[in-house]
């Protein structure tokens, strides 16, 4: 099955989730805790993450959508982003760059 990357708050995290990127907890400039990309979270990890006050994790989730469903969702997301930016000045390079990144985020 294909996967997709999503962010979750630590309270939403569950054992068995697979990290999509290196996870580090840094406090006052000191590395307190880290887990590698691809690590499968255990119950102990989740308690340790809570105890180290981690907030958000990046997870590789199963993506059960067919190619057609993914394409249809991307088309809807594109229409929504276009509507949100309809009044924006896309000739301004900064606004255009934000638009491009939001579009990428919504259609990933």
């Amino acid at each position, binding site marked *: 099955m294909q996967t997709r*990357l*999503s*962010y*979750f*708050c*630590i*309270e*939403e*995290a*569950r*054992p068995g989730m697979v990290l999509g990127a290196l996870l580090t907890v840094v406090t006052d400039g000191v590395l307190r805790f880290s887990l590698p990309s691809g690590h499968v979270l255990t*119950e*102990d*990890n*989740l*308690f*340790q*993450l*809570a*105890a180290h*006050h981690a*907030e*958000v994790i*990046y997870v590789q989730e199963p993506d059960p959508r067919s190619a057609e469903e993914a394409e249809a969702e991307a088309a809807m997301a594109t229409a*929504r982003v276009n509507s*949100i*930016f*309809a*009044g*924006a*000045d896309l000739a*301004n*390079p*900064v*606004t255009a*760059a*934000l*638009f*491009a*990144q*939001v579009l*990428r*985020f919504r259609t*990933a």
Partner: protein
Amino acid sequence: MKRALTREKVLATANRLPSFPRAIQGILATLDDPAASARILDQFVRSDPAVAARILYLANSAAAHGGRRDRISNLPFAVSLIGHRKVRELVMMSSLQGFIHSLAERGAGQWLWSHGLAVSICCEEVSRHVAASPLGGAALIAGLLHDVGQLWLIRFEADAFAEVQRVARDEAVSIDLPEKEAFGHDHATIGAWLAENWLLPDPIVQGIQYHHQPDSALDEPLVPIVHIAEVLSHALDLSQSESRVGYLSAQACAKLDLTWNADSQHLFGRIEGRSRHANALLWAA
């Protein structure tokens, strides 16, 4: 101009508004003194059952997902588990949630709270992303209160403000333009007058005042952050309202050394994850 609002006219209504939450003043006054800040938070957490319930919920949620079977009912342990910073954030959000709803009339509270919450999370995450100091929670408060001037307009100039909203919608212009036309000032200025009157620190007042026109006050630490945060909250469609990206200041982005590139995906993901969680937590209680 149909009617000229002045600072004096706006502040003359202050005694008809609910009191600004004392917890916020206490937290802001003790940011440089962790022991005093912890005492203030402890007092507030013990005196507010809704905040205590949310802290216990968060601690139990974290503990349960970590496989812990027994239920945490000890508040100091719950506070130590979720951390001082998160408790402070929760106290500020909870007290301002009650304040905004008591200030709001005509059903505006829910929309402005939802939008303020989204902007406050964007403020904190943008600060973190560009490694700017979040000024000990000031970014969060500025985000939550940036549109408080609109609440004042809805309460005291309801009909005229409804017309302003109609013009902004029909002509697809930023709302500050018809506001200035109708009242002589926009909601950002009215909000800044109120924030000053509540004795909020100057960076918060400036962040509210210039969130639509950041280029004239870019050296104020919260001005570029609140401006960009509001644009992002619309771009990511986070508020329970009509999202519309208008003006984005290139100078504000440059001031923060913020470039929209592949790294922005992580910023967007963090904002979306935190917003989803904050909405669930704060609406559930």
